[in-house]
């Protein structure tokens, strides 16, 4: 199985968000909110840093 860069980053964001939400929050509602928040932050960072690198390279 060969993943594209985006697919790899997507899976990375998903799994890290799941584990971080499980291990840091105490209720299921908090876990869900924090997991979604982390995941969105990861994806925003993927696109933001990706575009910054593209523009930086000219």
């Amino acid at each position, binding site marked *: 199985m060969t993943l594209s860069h985006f697919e790899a980053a997507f899976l990375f964001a998903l*799994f*890290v968000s*799941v*584990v971080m939400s499980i291990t840091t929050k*105490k209720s299921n509602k908090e876990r869900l909110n924090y997991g979604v928040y982390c995941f969105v932050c990861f994806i925003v960072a993927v696109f933001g840093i990706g575009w910054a690198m593209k523009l930086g390279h000219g």
Partner: protein
Amino acid sequence: MAVSTTTQAEKAPPVPVASWIGPVAAAWLVPGAGHFLLKKTGRGMLLFMRGTMFKPEAGPDYLTSLINYGGFVSNLASGAMYLLSTMFGYNQPDLPGPVHDYGTKFLVTAGLLNVLAMVDAYEIAIGKKD
């Protein structure tokens, strides 16, 4: 009689090792197993799925892994899957290329996430967390 103004820090009684060593060891060996032992099935399943997706591989032997990869300890934290994959030869020489680099980072991350899972299992076992 003077009233003592000093307050003794309320120390929680020490938690016996026997109450948490099992779940923590299980959490190290198989991701999610610590939570299963503590009857936290849902969280255990999620952690196990994450552990299964990050299939560990490393160098041809433990020493080479230690020298080649700073992430050896992190790989080792993945537990039985790392040990078994190395033991049964499901590893390959270090190859150049972005896909292999993703894999290396994933494996290191998997080990570090498993450390978080072990800490979580420990806290549940000692009653600090539900």
